[in-house]
């Protein structure tokens, strides 16, 4: 068997991983070499920018690395997405990281390593690669969640995350072992061939495997009833990691969902379709209902993101080229929106050190720009017109309806309306109340730092841009999904 070892195909991953190692070494020898603390985010940004250029250069390649990693438009789409998320995240939160995180060198290193894992999850074409990529992403995040400085919630959140994550991985693996046993291969293409040839006569083992795989992936995507870790990990983690969990980690899991359920597992669609439909309904309903009673902004966004996962699972249920590209577009819109909100919350936390919803009182007076960013972000998540969430949700619902799942979309519409209530709670605090005066000038006007303006500004423009003129993003998503159904 001839394997193709063209290492240049993995250039973006290699660039990011090398940067991660460099950052950790730079941190370890910081005193000896008289390096400034600011150098660490700068090295990370530089490495990510190089990786971004590499992934764009590989944009038209369609090849595989040693039958382990597939490089095509789908991989490129997620590479660009994940690198961009990490870039923006570092720009927007380096001040927070400097002040509120233990071991900043390791923190940047872990962020970069988890980006590598996420990119490989999107590119894997073999179950072993996929599994290792999942663990690279998860392990980095387990540790990163625990790195908050002087916050006892952080260790607790990490413990819950790592224990439940371990169980979920074990279930996923047990499921994969049955799929391997039934089909006799770990290669996506061969699994697909074995399943569609129809000579699989171990139906019980196949169904058991599928159920366990869905449970494991459902945990990673925080679908109800496997969501119990999500609010705790979101609340206890440093805010940049909360943003990262809700953005990259989620998108990477859906990349894997798409790769698996539109590829190797597609021939077994009759066995898994109803499970995912059920999961998506429970996730939408529970996520949005429990969000109603939250008083911590990170927890609120955790439940809101669970609700969003329900919408995304609809697309996997009704999998086709159309719903697939709608899902990719929705992921882009959701990532931009969510990051915009989180970057604004980080800026707010840097100034005030607060994260309860009723502490956002009067933000419209003390910092109208930030209030505008948060409001447009929340409205976008709720699906208001002219903002990203409306367009992407509209296309998503439309594609699911045309795939014949009208009842799912009706549930989604109701859940989506419910979500408006708790988003408005936050907006009410910012616009309808006077700022509280604690004697330290907390009711005075204040400004963001330059990088704060930069990160929130880019994302705010992104939210409006996708909302008003989504065509380029739509075309990008359309092109990215094509190789999966070729």
């Amino acid at each position, binding site marked *: 068997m001839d394997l193709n070892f063209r290492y240049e195909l993995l250039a973006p991953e290699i660039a990011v991983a090398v940067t991660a190692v460099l950052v950790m070494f730079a941190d370890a020898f910081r005193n000896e070499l008289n390096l400034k603390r600011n150098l660490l985010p700068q090295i990370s940004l530089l490495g990510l920018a190089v990786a971004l250029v590499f992934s764009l250069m590989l944009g038209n390649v369609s090849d595989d690395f040693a039958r382990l990693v597939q490089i095509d438009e789908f991989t490129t789409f997620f590479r660009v997405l994940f690198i961009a998320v990490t870039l923006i995240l570092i720009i927007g939160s380096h001040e927070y990281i400097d002040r509120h995180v233990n071991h900043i060198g390791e923190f940047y290193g872990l962020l970069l390593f988890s980006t590598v894992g996420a990119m490989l999850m999107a590119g894997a074409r*073999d*179950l*072993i690669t996929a*599994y*290792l990529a999942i*663990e690279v992403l998860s*392990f980095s995040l*387990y*540790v990163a969640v*625990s790195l908050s400085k002087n916050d*006892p*919630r952080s*260790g*607790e*959140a*990490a*413990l*819950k995350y*790592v*224990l439940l994550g*371990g*169980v979920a*991985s*074990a*279930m996923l*693996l*047990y499921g*994969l*072992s*049955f799929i*391997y*046993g039934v089909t*006799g*291969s*770990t*290669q996506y293409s061969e699994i697909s061939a074995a399943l569609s040839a129809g000579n699989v006569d171990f139906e019980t083992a196949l169904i058991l495997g599928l159920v366990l795989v869905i449970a494991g992936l459902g945990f990673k995507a925080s679908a109800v009833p496997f969501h119990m870790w999500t*609010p*705790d990990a979101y*609340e*206890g983690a440093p805010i940049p990691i909360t943003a990262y969990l809700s953005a990259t980690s989620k998108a990477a899991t859906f990349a894997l969902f798409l790769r698996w359920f539109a590829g190797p597992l597609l021939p077994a669609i009759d066995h898994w379709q109803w499970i995912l439909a059920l999961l998506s309904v429970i996730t939408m309903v529970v996520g949005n209902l*429990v969000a109603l*009673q939250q008083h911590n902004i990170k927890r609120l966004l955790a439940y809101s993101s669970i609700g969003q996962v329900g919408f995304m699972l609809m697309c996997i249920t009704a999998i086709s080229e159309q719903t697939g590209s709608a899902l990719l577009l929705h992921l882009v819109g959701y990532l931009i929106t969510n990051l915009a909100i989180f970057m604004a919350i980080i800026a707010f936390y840097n100034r005030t050190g607060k994260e309860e919803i009723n502490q956002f009182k009067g933000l419209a007076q003390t910092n109208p720009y930030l209030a505008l960013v948060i409001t447009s972000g929340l409205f976008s998540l709720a699906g208001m017109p002219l903002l990203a969430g409306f367009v992407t949700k509209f296309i998503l619902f439309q594609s699911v309806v045309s795939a014949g799942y009208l009842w799912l979309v009706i549930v989604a519409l109701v859940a989506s309306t419910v979500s408006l209530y708790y988003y408005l709670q936050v907006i009410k605090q910012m616009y309808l109340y006077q700022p509280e005066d604690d004697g330290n000038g907390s009711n005075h006007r204040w400004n963001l730092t330059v990088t704060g303006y930069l990160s929130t500004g880019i994302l705010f423009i992104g939210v409006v841009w996708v909302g008003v003129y989504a065509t380029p993003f739509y075309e990008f998503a359309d092109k990215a999904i094509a190789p999966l159904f070729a």
Partner: protein
Amino acid sequence: MIPLENFLILSGFLFAVGLYGVLARRSAILILMSVELMLAGVAINFAAFAAYLDVDGFSGMIFALFVITVAAAEVGLALGIVLRLFRERRTSYVDAANTLKW
């Protein structure tokens, strides 16, 4: 030759014992050990399937090796996190981790 079913029963038993342990134990260390049992079941499953069904290929064996390696890494990492919790609360029981609710 020992039939494949015997291996599958063994691995299923290990997995079930591990899952029970995760649900029933209250000490973080014992929960970790139970996760290890689940992963041991997985590794046996992969090795057995590789030996019986995928005779020309090694991917199942390689997968089993990776499962064992990653499991070891996971324990090291989780123990570090347990240690952090222990420093703060002087206990490794998961019931003590109760500040985050709903």
